[in-house]
């Protein structure tokens, strides 16, 4: 059965077309919905999965993701919480990750105050480059993603910051629950250990993607929809293209199909 997946957009969301295309090609039934319309219709329930794509919602003003997040938690907080509680899969890509963090849904599944932050990259710049990712969890959402995969990042605010003073404590909790899904690593799979450019943002503990404790909400900075065909890989002309983004999205669609 092909799951209905809500692809949310607001002003400035701009990776929606390729995300919709990827989901459709994987057999899902994606529907692109403007946040204002969702607020009007409150139809979240009708879907089996939710994807918040990348982009610059509301121009990344105030903080990336903050305005769209408030819009969601203020006007649709209850619906969103129920969706998450029911274990329906949610994927936030790049700006979508930032939105999920700002709603509080990531990492602990509770709509409310954010428990971590995605801050300006250590380089203080927007940066677009391909990275290697280490798979650290068996969340179903990651599908058949291999231990080391490749996808591109493109963001200015992708640095995961845990509460200063309590960072280790929070990290331990995340690790205990297997919530760190993806870490930046070297081509051979060693964690980047904060080193640029393997870890392009300076993200804490090389975190590139996080899930909720039940593994059903995934937020990630890299863009799987841009790693969807081998010919989008930077070395495809040498015959070294991969399609890891497709693999990951397949996992998501399958999971939604079961929801």
């Amino acid at each position, binding site marked *: 059965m092909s799951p209905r997946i809500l692809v949310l957009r607001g*002003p*400035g969301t*701009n*990776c929606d*077309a*390729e995300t919709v*295309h*990827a989901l459709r090609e994987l057999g899902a039934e994606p529907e692109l919905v*403007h946040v*204002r319309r969702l607020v009007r219709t409150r139809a979240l329930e009708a879907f089996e999965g939710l994807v918040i794509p*990348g*982009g*610059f919602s*509301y*121009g*990344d003003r105030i903080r990336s993701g903050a305005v769209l997040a408030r819009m969601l938690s203020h006007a649709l907080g209850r619906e969103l919480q129920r969706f998450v509680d029911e274990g329906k899969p949610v994927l936030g890509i790049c700006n979508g990750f930032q939105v999920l963090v700002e709603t509080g849904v990531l990492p602990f599944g509770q709509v409310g105050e954010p428990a971590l932050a995605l801050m300006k990259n250590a380089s203080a*710049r*927007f*940066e*677009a*480059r391909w990275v290697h990712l280490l798979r650290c969890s068996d969340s179903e959402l990651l599908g058949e993603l291999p231990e080391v995969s490749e996808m*591109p990042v*493109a963001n200015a605010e992708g640095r995961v910051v845990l509460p200063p003073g309590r960072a280790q404590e929070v990290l331990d909790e995340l690790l205990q629950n297997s919530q760190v899904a993806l870490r930046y690593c070297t081509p051979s799979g060693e964690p980047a250990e904060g080193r640029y450019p393997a870890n392009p943002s300076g993200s804490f503990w090389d975190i590139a993607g996080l899930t909720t404790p039940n593994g059903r909400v995934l937020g990630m900075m890299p*863009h799987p*929809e*841009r790693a*969807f065909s081998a*010919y*989008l890989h*930077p*070395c*495809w*002309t*040498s015959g*070294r293209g991969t399609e890891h983004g497709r693999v990951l999205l397949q996992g998501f669609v399958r999971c939604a199909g079961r929801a």
Partner: protein
Amino acid sequence: MPAERVPLLDADDEALLRLSRQRQLALSLEEMRAIQRHYRSLGREPTDVELETFAQTWSEHCVHKTFRGVIEYEGEVIRSLLRSTIARVTEELSPDWCFSVFEDNAGIVDFEGDYAIAFKVETHNHPSAIEPFGGAATGVGGVIRDILGVWGEPIANTDVLCFGPLDYPYERLPQGIKHPRFIFTHVVAGIGSYGNNMGIPTVNGAVLFDESYVGNPLVYCGTLGLVKKSCYMRSATPGDVLLLVGGRTGRDGIHGVTFASTELEEDAEEAFGTAVQIGDPIEEEKIKRAILQVRDERLGSAITDLGGGGLSSAVGEQAHRFGCGARVHLERVPLKYAGMKPWEIWVSESQERMLLIVPRRNLERVLEIFREEEVEASEIGELIPERVLRVYYGSEKVAEIDMDFLFGGLPEVRRKAEWAPPPLEEPEFEPPEPGEALLRVLSMPNVASKEEVIRTYDHEVKAQTVLKPLQGCFSGPGDAAVLKPLRHSWRGVAVSCGINPEYGKIDPYWMAASAIDEAVRNNLAVGGSRIALLDNFCWGSPEKPRNLGALVRAAKACYDIARAYGTPFISGKDSLYNESPMGSVTPTLLISAVGILEDVRRAVSMDFKERGASVYVLGMSRRELGGSQYYRMLGFLGRSVPRVVPQEARRTFRGVEEGIRRGLIRACHDVSEGGVGVALAEMCFSGGVGAEVELSRMPAESMRVDELLFSESNSRFIVEVARGMEEEFEELLRGCGAVFARLGVTGGRELVVRYEGREVVSLELERLRESWQSGVRV
């Protein structure tokens, strides 16, 4: 807020000029007199709104007086340089795949089925000089609107940037001029910010440095778009509604057009402070969505962007195009704040606005679409059958202009042009050690890696960028980007550019020829074919005969070379008052090229792919190092500028095209700045594969080893041919009549260059890469 009557009828010449200056009209005495005569015949004084309309519509920026005027050059009388050179190429070639050329906001060529590709490149130099972030950002925003203005969906951006040297001493900066480094960082940030926010990948460009850009940087912004021919609506008729959509109108951007048509002076910041804008890409992103919806439902009858001249030019030009007139009610224009005078509303260049023309029966649905995207849309008037422009503010008529005079009354501009070759000499010197020289040339700012710039631009959003600006597993400098814009088709678009102002210092003719050659060969190198060109001239004042002479020479080369190559021009633009207290900019011609690939899976990148493959050079190398990076590194300019031999070049081009189509070529890189030495080095470190070559095999005029390595002769390529394919490849090239030689093989971790068996360069890939990467730091 009434309009003002401007006393003109009795003004003497001096008063006319004073008026033009005080009101920042940038109109010449001739033009002021023509307006005066017109109003004398009407027996009334013009209103300020009317006068402003002439200033905008008759500005260099809007009508290209110089390019369309009369030029006397070496006993020759040229009527319309544009028609006799650039446009003539296209006219004579008259390719059936050109859908729209020179008449729209962008040039449009067929792509596949109902789909066509639109391409436009603009400059935003003066705004970027005084507010580099906002100037560059709104440059991007503006050219994107050019694409929306042909009902196109923007799919990629390009940017070519020219700055003063980044290490320019502060003490030498004239008052009011910003440091090149400040301009550089903010321009790059502005371009990235607009494109990234709108979700349009920036896929191709260049960054150049020269002293003449210190006072007047150049910022070229380009956008490619996807057009559906069946939804290309251009058939407005009287009665159709003028719908202003997008952001609100404010005082910002007033007189941008006249600003662009004036020289930058020390007090520019004060005088044109209102021309400064920051831009709001999110607003434009919303507009884009709404316009594409209107397009898909075929609800409009015409569309245009609001750029230079604001409403005054947009409304006037549209009415003119459809052979009618227009009635406009300025009080209906949504404003950012109260207190704007009618003429200010009429000429404001506030960003993120478009003008749609909509048959009345579709109006309701169009308004609904804009409401859905949260974009303001206001009916401000309509087209009328009479050829007159009537502008109202409330019940007051603030302008009534005869369209025929507005578009036909501009006195012909007559200018003198002259050109003499500058007194230059070829240098004599003791050549440095070639390996050392290669490392230094690799780190010359114009050659060095622009990675730190490129990575601040999202070049992959939309997931259509098949060949990226940085290519190979080790991110080398690609020749062109390739996009795959349609989901259901493997057909691709190749985008490239060519620019080399150094050559123009010796001879603008060969600079233009070289720029075309470079744009074309960059495009061919990735597998592009059926190439179309755009020209963008950035020149100093054409009122200086020398500048104009250089312009004429460059334009003639455009005709000669593009005609010989069979590559039509489809659009272009000139920016002619690039002057600062430090003088004119070096005449700079940017050529952008767009080509087609049958199948993107056949695209070729520039990095060496595997060991043991054969390395070839294609094309003839000549002793022409004038303007080369090698000379520049040694402090020379020289005079032996690279030329183009079109017949010879075409044979090489055929070989490359066919070699790629047949899958014989595994890697291909054009030879440009830094010559064969730099091209080889780049191919090696981008692929992580070394090479061993023998220079004496190069088909070349007799010259020294360093000259062989660094000559920048045009129309040349280095290619890698898969093992076992050599024979077929050589046969193909012979069949094309191309000049070529097998230089050596790939392999190892070094670039080894020999001359008659003697090793002249032996450098590890790492060292080559490091030099290349050390050149330009953000």
